[in-house]
């Protein structure tokens, strides 16, 4: 099965990512790369959601702390060994941004009808198997949830 395409009857492809004690779903079409944690340089005075700046593909990249974006507990050993680079922001002004996370898990299909609506960049919650997953709307990332 080609999970890179949207399959209306089954749902849309999402990459599941663990951030602290929560699992969130990112639309696969918006995922640019999953890499080992980028070296992040902090910006003094930044809000906690902005971990700092990193170099990626020859550009300076903002790296966001996915756990803090979600308001998720950080878990016992917050090390963020993975950076998921995604396209985010309004479609006409979208930019690459890094999401510091604990683990990229798997690609799954999530049916729109199964998502209980949320607010802001949190499109809603859905059950994937026995797991509650927070489904993100990356076009609205940066807005308050």
């Amino acid at each position, binding site marked *: 099965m080609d999970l890179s395409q949207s399959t209306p009857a089954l749902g849309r492809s999402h990459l599941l990512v663990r951030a602290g004690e929560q699992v969130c779903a990112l639309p696969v079409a918006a995922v640019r790369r999953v890499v080992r944690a980028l070296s992040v*340089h*902090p*910006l*003094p*005075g*930044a*809000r906690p*959601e*902005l971990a*700092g*700046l*990193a*170099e990626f593909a*020859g*550009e*300076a*990249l*903002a790296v*966001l702390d996915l756990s803090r974006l979600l308001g998720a507990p950080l878990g016992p050993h917050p090390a963020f060994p993975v950076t998921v680079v995604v396209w*985010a*922001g309004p479609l006409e*002004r979208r*930019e690459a*941004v890094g999401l510091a996370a604990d683990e990229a898990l798997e690609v799954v299909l999530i049916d729109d009808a199964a998502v209980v609506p949320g607010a802001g960049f949190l499109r809603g919650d859905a059950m994937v198997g026995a797991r509650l997953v927070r489904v993100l709307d990356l076009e609205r*990332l*940066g807005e308050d949830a």
Partner: protein
Amino acid sequence: MSAASYLLFRRGGGLWGVASDEVVRVAPHAAGLAVEAGATAFAADEVVGVVAGLAVRPLPLFVRRFWSEPGAGLALHAGEPLMIVDPRQPPPPFLSPPEASGGTPDV
């Protein structure tokens, strides 16, 4: 904002740049350095050097969203991201505090 060259300095774990032609002097200050540019003195832990030909681009959406200070642009130097600061709009976390007068206050 684009200049022919920039003076780069470290502060707070990050790399920062200010247009060289704005820099008046670099002087010891407290435990570090003060980079004086225009009417502003930036606190610096270390001066890295002066580099020319930086490709400076506007601040990304997500930096502006979560960092409310007035950065003038972003660039890369030797694979490390750096923030360009404008001495006319200095980010407060980087201002060098004035030297203590050392005198006894009037009572």
